[in-house]
């Protein structure tokens, strides 16, 4: 659906996006993550044809974003950051205007306007001026606008920015439902949201792609992922050399707890599980063992690991 190959954008001397490449296949819900100023919005703006790339290329549904901009724009539903709307219009009037701009007319326009108002929960406020609506409702108007022409691809720039938890939940549910019919690329820095809704994650930082994979793969391949914690009563100097000799183990750090037991943190390569080996070893050597656990990472840790500056 989207193929990006070494896309770059610089503002004067500042390189905002540095040769990023990734792909999005049809039907994916992709979370586009990165710290503030990582180049997320710039990338999305390039994809929607609002900004030209400095170099590189991207294709959406097989169409070049620069040469066939109009074709591309017909296939995209874009919700910009902070959802700019014409505040002097009424909700229904605005949606009809946007629908007409995107090529709908007559009964089809009427039908789609009613449908998106229903989907986004706007039917009750359809006669209100947009300037009187709360942030949550404006966000929904923006989403309804992005959906109205039934685009193949939805590009949402921070769709839940500034909403309260209930509204975030409602929007998230909406996005999950939309995922059945649309391909979605959404940028956010709320990681729990990505874990719940997205089946692919692209993390960028400083204009470069740091990772692009499914959330579960990212979590299992992070550096901390192979780490195992064991609590034994055996002295440290006896345990450490034996566990350190395992192939996948890089380092063992032991500490004595207040009750006299020792806790060992076993640093091992990602995607390995040394629990069974350690358990068998303890049983064989008759070491008293009371806890053995493997670290389960979160996307947040992956994010921090990939984008931390220090």
């Amino acid at each position, binding site marked *: 659906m989207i193929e990006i190959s070494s896309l770059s954008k610089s503002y004067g001397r500042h390189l905002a996006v540095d040769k990023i490449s990734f792909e999005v296949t049809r039907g994916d819900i992709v979370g586009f993550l990165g710290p503030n100023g990582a180049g997320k919005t710039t990338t999305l703006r390039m994809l929607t*044809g*609002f900004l*030209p790339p400095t170099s590189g290329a991207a294709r959406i549904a097989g169409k070049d974003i620069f040469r066939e901009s109009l074709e591309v724009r017909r296939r995209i539903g*874009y919700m*910009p950051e902070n959802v*700019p709307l014409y505040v002097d219009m009424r909700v229904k009037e605005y949606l009809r*205007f946007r629908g007409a*701009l*995107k090529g709908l007319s007559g009964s089809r326009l009427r039908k789609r306007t009613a449908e998106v108002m229903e989907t986004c929960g706007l039917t009750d406020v359809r006669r209100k001026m947009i300037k009187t609506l709360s942030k949550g409702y404006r966000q929904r108007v923006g989403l309804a606008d992005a959906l109205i022409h039934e685009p193949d691809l939805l590009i949402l720039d921070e769709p839940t920015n500034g909403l309260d938890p209930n509204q975030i939940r409602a929007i998230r549910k909406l996005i999950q439902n939309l995922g059945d019919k649309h391909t979605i690329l959404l940028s956010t820095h709320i990681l729990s949201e990505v874990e719940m809704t997205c089946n692919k994650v692209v993390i960028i930082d400083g204009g470069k792609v740091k990772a692009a994979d499914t959330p579960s793969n990212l979590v299992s391949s992070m550096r901390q992922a192979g780490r195992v914690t064991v609590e034994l009563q055996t002295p440290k100097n006896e345990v450490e050399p034996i566990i350190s000799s395992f192939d996948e183990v890089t380092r063992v750090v032991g500490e004595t707890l207040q009750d006299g037991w020792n806790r060992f943190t076993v640093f091992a390569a990602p995607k390995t599980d040394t629990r069974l080996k350690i358990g068998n070893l303890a049983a064989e050597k008759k070491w008293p063992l009371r806890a053995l656990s493997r670290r389960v990472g979160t996307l947040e840790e992956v994010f921090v690991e990939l984008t931390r500056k220090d």
Partner: protein
Amino acid sequence: MRIFRILFFKELKAYFFSPFGWLILAFAALMQGFVLTEALEAFSDQAQRENLVFVTFSSPLFWFYFFVLFPVLTMRLFSEESRSGTLEGLLTAPVQTWQVVLSKFSASYLTFLILWIPAFFHFYLFTILTDVPPPFSKGEVGGAMIAIALMGLLFTACGCLASALTSSQIIAGLVCLGLLLVHFFLGAVTNIFGDTIPAAPLFEFVSSQNHLRDLTRGLVDTRPIAYYLSTTAFFLFLTYHLLDFRRWKP
């Protein structure tokens, strides 16, 4: 064409479905009334060599309010959209930049033309309310209409350009007023330095005061028509590229 129509009516609504358009209309009607009153008083004081249309449109008060209309009408067009961010939504929809430029220009130009309905209605009123023979002919009124319409084209295009330059309405309005004043004073150069200076024909050619003077005497020349049409096209071309520059700048 469909997209143009949708955008055009949206812009037109922005003028007339809000107090804004009606306020300008009221201001214009009031000033047109003042200018006409002034001209009629001149006629009642002493005999005039020129016709009523000419005297009305050569008053300094006319230029004052005429120049105020354009910044007020056009300053909002692009700067407001770029300030509030709606330009991003507009230009990422499947619309072409020229459709945006032309629709905004046409809507503000049509609004400008509507502002002149009262002024020309005054001349019509004169013929039905008084029993004196009108001190002007139909041709002179027609000439004045052409002059207003032509100057409106160029000055509205100037306003569009000024508005596309900045995201501040105030600055857009001031730049537009500045452009109009520069144009006005270029036309006044020969009044100050005399018409013997080498570039005098050039200054006379661009002088709106001269065009208005000729046309309100009923003298329709094709040169000003070509001048206004071509400069309007040029200013709209610049506006188009200012907006589109965003799309291709390195």
